[in-house]
C-alpha cells in the first residue's frame, strides 16, 4: 500500500493518533457503499470488488499502529520531497545506539531459556520486548505528530522529525521480530 494513501481512501485525516471509532465508522460506510452486491452490471461489480479490496487493505494498514506509522511516514516523506526537501537525507537503517548488541544478547538469552525450559525467564524476556515496543510506539507517534504539524518548507526540523520516526520504527521491527519468534507467541498460533 505504499503507493496509495489509506487515509485519503477512508476520508480520514493524516495523523498517527487516529480516532479508532471513526476509522471503524468510515470503514463500514465505505465497505457498504462499495459492496459488489449493490451492483448488477458485471463490470461495475468487478470495479466494486477492486475498491472493496483497496478499502480492506487501507483499513488493515491503519488499524495496526506500526503499519499506520509506516504509511504515514512514507506519505510525509514523499510530501517533504515534493516540497523540495534535500533528496534522501534520511538514514533508512538508523537505529538507537547499542540496539543491535542489546537485541543479540536478548535473543541469545531467549535461546538459552528456551533450551533449558526456563519459563519465567522466557516470560520476562517477552515482557521486556513488549514494553520496549510499546514505549517506542509512543515515541514514534510523537515524532510523526510533530512532523505532521511542521510547515512543509521547514526542511531541517521536518527532516529531523522524520528521521527520528524512522529510527523508532526500525527499532520496533526488531522487538516485533523477537516477540513473533518467542516460544509463547509461536505456541499461540
Amino acid at each position, binding site marked *: 500500500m505504499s503507493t496509495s494513501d489509506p487515509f485519503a481512501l477512508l476520508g480520514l485525516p493524516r495523523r498517527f493518533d487516529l480516532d479508532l471509532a471513526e476509522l471503524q465508522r468510515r470503514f463500514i460506510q465505505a465497505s457498504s457503499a462499495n459492496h459488489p452486491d449493490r451492483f448488477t452490471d458485471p463490470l461495475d461489480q468487478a470495479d466494486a470488488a477492486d475498491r472493496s479490496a483497496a478499502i480492506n487493505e487501507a483499513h488493515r494498514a491503519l488499524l495496526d499502529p506500526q503499519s499506520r506509522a509506516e504509511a504515514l511516514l512514507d506519505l510525509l516523506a514523499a510530501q517533504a520531497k515534493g516540497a523540495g526537501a534535500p533528496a534522501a537525507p534520511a538514514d533508512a537503517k538508523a537505529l538507537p545506539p547499542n540496539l543491535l548488541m542489546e537485541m*543479540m544478547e536478548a535473543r541469545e538469552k531467549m535461546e538459552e531459556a528456551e533450551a533449558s525450559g526456563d519459563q519465567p525467564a522466557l516470560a520476562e524476556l517477552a515482557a521486556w520486548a513488549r514494553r520496549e515496543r510499546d514505549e517506542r510506539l509512543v515515541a514514534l507517534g510523537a515524532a510523526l505528530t510533530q512532523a505532521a504539524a511542521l510547515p512543509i518548507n521547514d526542511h531541517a526540523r521536518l527532516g529531523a522529525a522524520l528521521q527520528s520516526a524512522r529510527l523508532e520504527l526500525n527499532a520496533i521491527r526488531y522487538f516485533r521480530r523477537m516477540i513473533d519468534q518467542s516460544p509463547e507467541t509461536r505456541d499461540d498460533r
Partner: protein
Amino acid sequence: MAYSQKVLDHYEKPRNVGSLDKAATNVGTGIVGAPECGDVMKLQILVDEATGKIVDAKFKTFGCGSAIASSSLATEWVKGKTIDQALEIKNTDIVQELSLPPVKIHCSVLAEDAIRSAIADYKKKRATSAAPGAPAAGSVQSQSASV
C-alpha cells in the same frame, strides 16, 4: 517460499554456529541487523596474529532460513583467508552460491556487512591494544542488555 537445496542444507546443518570470546584481542565481532525484517546476525572471526589469517569463525543468526544460510556460508568462506581476502567476499557471491531469490538478497547483504563489521572490530582492537596503556579490548562487553 521455496528454498534452494543449498539454503536448506545450510539451514538444516548450519556450519560454525556458536560464539568466540569477544573480549579476546585476536577475535573480531560483527553484529548487524536488517531493519526490513528485524533479523539480527553475529559473526565472529579468530585471527592468527602471526599469519594474519582467519583460523576460525562462528555465527549466530536469529532470522529466516536465508539469513542463517548466508551467515553459515560466510563463516565457511572466511576461514583460511587473510582479512584482506575476506573483505573481497561480495554479497553477490553469496546470492549466486545459494541461488537466493530477489526478496532474500538483503540476507546476503547482511552477511557481507557482518564480515566487514567483524574485520573492522578486529582492526580496531589491534590498534587499541597496540597503543601503550590502552584499556583492554573488552569494551563491547560493557554494553549489556537491560533485561
